[in-house]
């Protein structure tokens, strides 16, 4: 039996060797190479689902919810598990044509195990109907997306901006902030400017998927999941009612209006016409509609409040008056004689609207006397004008909390600018400068700049910082954050002179353009008609503030190619101020037909639209 014993030992040794080899092998995999294999298995079987938090909501100044989020659902099918016979049922539940769903299924069926979206933009009600039938709908599942929902009549198209999937270039730029493909990203306006605040923090759900890509279970019972954090809500300075009202007044008009609180720069309304429906961007964008917006000759994408540059016309006259008074070129009771033209140039070049006779500065503003202001600029050098205009915010890009690049600076020339533009002896003459006195010539302003300027006249010399957001609120903690704006600039303006300006502008409304008077509320304003080469008719410009003695609203209106400032622009400003201050529009007496007329004073078509070359 020794022989047997030794064979037994050898065999036991063989068993031990083989078990040893296997133990070493398994140990190598499970202990030495564990992290490699863990990586492989996690890559395989664990997938991260990004959970998009609801974007911050927008409230107006009175707490009216303007912009919310609506959960929408995308229905997916996995063709391998899907029963084609259920397509009619699904289309009936979704109330969508079954040819569309059948078509998408056909396209998806090429990759039988690949989940494919079969219907996007499904409402909760529709989804519920589908889920009620889940037991007979194999291979159907869904994902949640958040969609912007606009709840008021105020569209606020240009200031609001919209939300789209992040673009490749934006992704490159903002990858470090945690963006990934498919994330929503604000495009333009407030959505872009406050993107980092309203975006919130996307969360992650980790789910176990099987070899066919189906979700099998929560990974580690959700221990690894990170909840999404909601974006900050924005409390806007906008008055939704006034905004909607402003938008309703611009039917048939091109132009812009901005109303702000001259005491603090809060923007009450900002509208650029024409605009477009932001709801376009909450669903799959129809390329035809997109084309019609981007290629339309009226340029609806263009923000005419901050981007349209035009000559201020007579709305600049109070600034010239302030300049002349400040420089001692004229005293408040000094008079200039107006024969209906300025004598320089023999009366054929520098015309006035009327023969105003001997006229002082207040009357010159009241009657908008060209002769007076030609004369002022005959006496004053262009660099002094440049300095004061710059002080009042012209020729510089005003701060505004919408997307950068959407605000223009305009132009207020100085002598260096003229030398550059018109070089050589006799390149530019004093006549150019005199023209600036009536807001014409080589000068460009924006509606937003005019509103700030109006505010500064109204509030006694403070150049406010226009802004849209009062505070940002964390919806979970209620914590308020006030955005960091540039401080308003207190200008060193002579209050006596400002009072003269306001007196002239009060008389503009009370006497010259009496139809713009708000019933029972004194106000100040100034008309302007700006030459342009866009189309027939001057641009109608108007600036206004009310109530006159303690203004709560300053408005600048710009209506392209609509004639006199006291027409379309003046009426719009007047009714908006009334609406804001009284909450209503009083159409008794003359105001009824003034109101009526406003809707007939539309923008003349652009030359481009007519097919003739613009001047």
């Amino acid at each position, binding site marked *: *039996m020794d*022989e*047997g*014993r030794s*064979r*037994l030992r*050898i*065999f*036991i040794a*063989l*068993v*031990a060797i*083989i*078990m040893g*080899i*296997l*133990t070493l*092998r*398994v*140990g190598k*995999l*499970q*202990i030495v*190479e*564990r992290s*490699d*294999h*863990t990586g*492989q*298995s*996690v890559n*395989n*079987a*664990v997938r991260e689902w990004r959970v998009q938090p609801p974007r911050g909501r927008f409230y107006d100044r009175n707490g009216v919810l303007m912009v919310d989020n609506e959960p929408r659902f995308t229905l997916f099918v996995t063709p*391998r*598990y899907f029963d084609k016979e259920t397509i009619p049922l699904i289309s009936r539940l979704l109330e969508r044509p079954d040819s569309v769903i059948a078509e998408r299924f056909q396209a998806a069926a090429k990759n039988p195990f690949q989940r494919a979206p079969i219907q996007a933009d499904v409402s909760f009600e529709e989804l519920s109907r589908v889920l009620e039938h889940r037991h007979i709908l194999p291979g159907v599942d869904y994902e949640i997306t958040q969609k912007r929902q606009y709840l008021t009549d105020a569209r606020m198209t240009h200031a609001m901006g919209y939300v789209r999937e992040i673009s490749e270039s934006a992704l490159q730029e903002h990858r470090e902030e945690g963006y990934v493909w498919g994330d929503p990203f604000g495009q333009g306006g407030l959505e872009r400017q406050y993107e980092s605040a309203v975006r919130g923090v996307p969360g992650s759900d980790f789910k*176990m*998927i*099987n*070899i*066919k890509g*189906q979700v*099998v*279970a929560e*990974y580690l019972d959700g221990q690894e999941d990170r909840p999404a954090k909601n974006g900050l809500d924005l409390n806007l300075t906008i008055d939704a009612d006034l905004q909607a009202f402003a938008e309703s007044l611009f039917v048939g008009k091109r132009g812009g209006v901005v109303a702000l609180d001259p005491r603090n720069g809060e923007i009450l309304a900002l509208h650029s016409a024409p605009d477009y429906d932001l709801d376009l961007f909450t669903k799959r964008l129809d390329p035809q509609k997109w084309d019609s917006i981007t290629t339309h000759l009226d340029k609806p994408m263009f923000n005419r409040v901050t981007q349209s540059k035009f000559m201020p016309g007579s709305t600049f006259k109070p600034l010239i008056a302030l300049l002349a008074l400040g420089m001692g070129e004229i005293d408040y009771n000094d008079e200039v004689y107006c024969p209906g033209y300025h004598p320089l140039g023999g009366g054929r070049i520098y015309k006035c609207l009327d023969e105003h006779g001997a006229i002082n500065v207040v009357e010159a503003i009241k009657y908008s006397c060209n002769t007076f202001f030609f004369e002022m600029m005959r006496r004053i050098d262009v660099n002094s004008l440049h300095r004061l205009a710059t002080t009042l915010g012209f020729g510089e890009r005003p701060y505004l909390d919408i997307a950068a690049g959407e605000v223009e600076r305009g132009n207020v020339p100085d002598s260096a600018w003229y030398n550059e533009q018109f070089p050589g002896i006799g390149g530019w003459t004093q006549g150019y400068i005199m023209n600036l006195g009536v807001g014409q010539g080589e000068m460009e302003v924006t509606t937003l700049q005019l509103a700030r300027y109006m505010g500064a006249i109204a509030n006694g010399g403070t150049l406010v910082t226009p802004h849209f957001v009062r505070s940002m609120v964390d919806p979970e903690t209620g914590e308020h954050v006030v955005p960091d704006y540039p401080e308003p600039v207190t200008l060193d303006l002579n209050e006596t002179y400002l009072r003269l300006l306001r007196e002239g502008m009060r008389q503009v409304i009370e006497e010259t353009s009496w139809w713009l008077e708000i019933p029972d509320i004194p106000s100040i304003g100034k008309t302007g008609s700006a030459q342009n080469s866009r189309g027939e008719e001057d641009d109608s410009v108007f600036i206004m503030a009310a109530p006159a003695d303690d203004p709560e609203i300053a408005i600048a209106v710009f209506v392209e190619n609509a004639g006199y400032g006291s027409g379309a622009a003046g009426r719009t400003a007047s009714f908006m101020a009334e609406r804001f201050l009284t909450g209503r529009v009083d159409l008794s007496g003359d105001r009824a037909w003034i109101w009526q007329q406003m809707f007939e004073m539309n923008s003349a078509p652009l030359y481009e639209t007519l097919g003739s070359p613009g001047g």
Partner: protein
Amino acid sequence: MEVQEGDQYVRRRYTNLDPVTLFTWAALVLIGLLAIFSATHGPSSEFYQFNPRQNFSNQIMWVGISLVGLVIALVLPVRFFQQMAFPIYGLTILLLLAALVFGREVNGAKSWLYFGPIGLQVSEMAKVGTVLAVAQVVGMRRPKTMDLRFAFLLLGIIMLPAILIVLQNDTGTALVFFGLVPIVLFWSGLDFNLLLLMIAPAVAGYFAIVSMPVAIGFVLLFLGFMWWRTRDVRISVVSLVMTGGVVAMANVALTMILSDYQVQRIMSFTDPGAAEFRQNVGFHQVNSMAAIGSGGWFGKGFLQGTQTQGGYVFEQSTDFIFSVIGEEWGFFGSLLVLGLFAILLIRLLQLGANMKHPFGVLIAAGAAGIYLIHIFINIGMATSLLPVIGIPLPFISYGGSALLANSALLAIVLSLHLKKDDFSIYGY
């Protein structure tokens, strides 16, 4: 007195029933059931195209059948196994032939016979018949008369079913029979040097696939070892020719004879994650290794394996069941299984040695040898130590025929050991 004698008789029999073997068998079957449950009843099971949940209930049924078989085997007398060895062998050969003619093809192998709803993988049954027949032949022989004719008889008994199984296109199972040859010859008293000469070429061939320098090193080492052992020029030359020949043949086959597809199949286990392999056969081993490797020390927990529950591992309730244990039970689970197997095999060999009769010794050695080959190939495959060869892990993998056949072998060993004193010294 008769009653007292009966008592003693019963007590003696009871003590001969080996508890260690029974316990390890039960433990392995239980582990198998848990792993099958995890592979088929996890959160993902509802997504399977063909629901394998019934694998679990089927296996429970087969455990019951095996238990009944175990009890029957314990009751049967020693003589029954000896007398029935050849008839059973003959029956299994007939079944193999029948499977070739009437069999149903499953996974490419025509080795299944169906009796109503119950399928029987006859190649599994053939293992039992072959081990019985081999043991009976060795048992009838006068001890220590190992001659070539006898060795060829044993070889023939083993190779006949092996060839039929190859014809059924189930090379993996046939491989077990080839592996059985050296084990049986070893226990029948084959010269140890000859045995080494039989085994060494296989090892050399393996190294030739994994790494040519290692293979050449092994050939030289083996040559030196045989020379040191025997100081016999002839044996040394034969050892060099056999191992070196296999290495050279493997090299020629891989580079010139075999098609790319075949080479890929053979080579892929050496680096299953490589780009050229992972889309094909390598895919299963990559996922199996990912499952086992990611289990770490203690595993991810019952029903918590992401690979298992995601159905990433192919045939995870049958051939790749070890990936389930490795992933969900970790290194300790792997050690538990390997340890139980080691205990069972060594215990079986000891039981065989205790029986002192060649028939019992050979049955025990044959059973242990068959288990060992299965364990090595199966776990080797799951851990990418070996190519993908589809054979089950004894007692653990889902598969009724295999469980029944393996349990039958074990039951015969237990039964023979229980009645080891009944062995006729005359060998019938």
